[in-house]
């Protein structure tokens, strides 16, 4: 695997895009998708390194991450729907009643 670096670079770029998306966007669903992007960037790193090192552990981890991500998607979307029911909005700026 001579081109491990290229995989890692793609992964890093994806992670950075995801992070910036989470920090800058207001729309809860977009933030949510950005988090998925970050998770998948990590998955890509796991797979690439697993292949590179000839060790299956990384791939097992990826299965776990995808399972957790699925559960998280279900819970997260439910939260967003519940929020929308209350506020008629999915803008995270409006989630502000728990501050000083």
């Amino acid at each position: 695997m001579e081109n491990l670096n290229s995989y890692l670079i793609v992964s890093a770029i994806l992670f950075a895009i995801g992070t910036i998306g989470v920090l800058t966007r207001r729309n809860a669903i977009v933030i949510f998708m950005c988090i998925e992007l970050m998770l998948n960037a990590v998955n890509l790193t796991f797979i690439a390194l697993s292949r590179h090192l000839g060790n299956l552990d990384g791939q097992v981890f990826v299965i776990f991450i995808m399972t957790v991500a699925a559960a998280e998607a279900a819970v997260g979307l439910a939260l967003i729907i519940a929020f929308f029911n209350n506020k008629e909005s999915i803008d995270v700026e409006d989630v502000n009643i728990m501050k000083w």
Partner: protein
Amino acid sequence: MFDKVWLIPLFPLIGFLINGLFGKKIKNETVIGGIGTLMIFLSFLVSCGILMQMIGLPPEQRVFEKVLFPWIHSGNFKADMAFLVDPLSVIMIMIITGVGSLIHLYSIGYMHGEEGFYRFFAYLNLFCMSMLLLVLGSNMLVMFIGWEGVGLCSYLLIGYYFHKKSAGDAAKKAFVMNRVGDFGFLIGLFTLYWWFGSNHNIWTVNFTEIKAASHLLPYGGVVTFASLCFFVGATGKSAQIPLFTWLPDAMEGPTPVSALIHAATMVTAGVYMIGRMSFVFVKSPETMMVIAVVGAATAIFAATIGTAQNDIKRVLAYSTVSQLGFMFLAMGVGAFSAGIFHLMTHAFFKACLFLGSGSVIHAMHHALHKVHSNDDAQDMRNMGGLRKAMPITFLTFLVSTIAISGIPGFSGFFSKDEILWMSFANAYHGDLNIVLWGIGAIAACFTAFYMFRLVFMTFFGESRLSPKAKDHLHESPLTITIPLMVLGFLAVVGGYIGMPKLMGMLPNYFEHWLDPVFELANEYGSKYAHHGAHPSHAIEWGLMGLSVVIALVGIAIAFTMYVKRTELPGKFVATFPTLHRAVYNKWYIDEIYDYVFVNPCKAAGQFLWKGFDVLVIDGVVNGVANVVMGFSGIFRYMQSGYVYNYAFTMALGVVVMLGYYVFK
């Protein structure tokens, strides 16, 4: 019958529970009063049974201990709920249940229509139970339960009219002063227990066991300390100098309470306690001297105050304090059976006097109420000439007054003369004897004076009521007059069971009766015998005659001042205004106590409240809270509520942590 002794305190307890729990629902005064009176009367019957059985036994077998159930058993310490039946406790239960029954009966008439009628009878029953526990307890702890119980009931009954501030204050005063005494009692108890335990490995609070081991006690030393502590307890309960000022204030309670608790029974608990532990007290000559001196001083001191009071019940209250002083004088000169004898005769005539004054107040109150007058129904200056309107009350009152004054043939003479004689002829105090006798004799003169002053002002002369009110005066109902007549009868004949040997007409049954109880104490006391003189019969006759003359002089002065020449008291006051003011104001004792004890206590309380509690305690507590609030005031701004802030902080944190590991 001895086995059934536990029934005696049980009946009043049942009465207390019935009236206390259901009295409010029963409402019917006859039923409530009937239950209360019946219960104490049943106790009286059981007591009579025990007395009868005891009379039938030879003197050695007259002590019986009934263990009801084991109470505290812990290591060396052992205290049972147990009753001691002996000649002394039998006399006490006879007085308590006998006089108690009469006063319960009286209360049905006297308390008629009062708010909280059931409460009164519940308390009265509870008091009888506590008092019976006190005298029957076979160890110091059971006695202490009773000791505290009667204090509590006294508090509750003095404060019976609790909506009146003066009654509430008097109740508090009585309770606090009793507590001071109780503290002494406890310290004495601990000292005796500790001394026997640590020196002889006898860990006991039981009277019989302490008596059996009392030969181990040294003369003086630790015994002086312990017995003085017990004596402090006795001064609190029995209103002696210095803890006597609560008793006159206790007259705020209803009159039957004054008769039962503050004349006949509770206040004699201190005398009883000294009698019960006489074998400890005689081992300390110092304590005996303190008791005798305090007793004599109280007798004369309270008697002087009694001469200038105008409230009929207050005169009687000071008279009680004074008579209790006589009892303590008897105890202090080793004349234990004379002291208990005076306790008994005093219970008869003083209960009669109090109940008689209650009858007078009842009639006065009624008459004044009818004409809508606000005059004080207890003030003797409003009375006068009552003997025509209230013949039975007058007669019983007069008989009791003669008895307390010490006129031969009446009960008070036998007991008081015995005390005076013993204070002259005892073996304990050497040269002090003549002083003790002198003080006692003068106090007896004062007693005759103020008691007849009371009788003359109340029952003789012309009525000082308005003519309209006078028409409403009438004799009290039968429930009131029957107890008066019974007690008046006892005040006359009660003394004949204890006639002095000298007169020789009857043997001194009373002294023989108590011999087994005080035998040991007298034996210990005989150690001092070499100090004592052996006065002849001629001296005894002479002193007896002298004390009669003294009493007659007191009566004659009272007769001159309050019947013959009624302008004399006014002249006397005009001649000695300072003296009169001092006596009228009770020698300013209350003011002195306020200045020396109460006000410093209040000041200390103020300081501890404003200075210590508010500044230090509250300061620390509030300070902690303020510091926490200050910090949270700063840190709460971290919670901006914006999701991107939290996310950014998280990302930053991750970067910092990664950076730390990468560039380490």
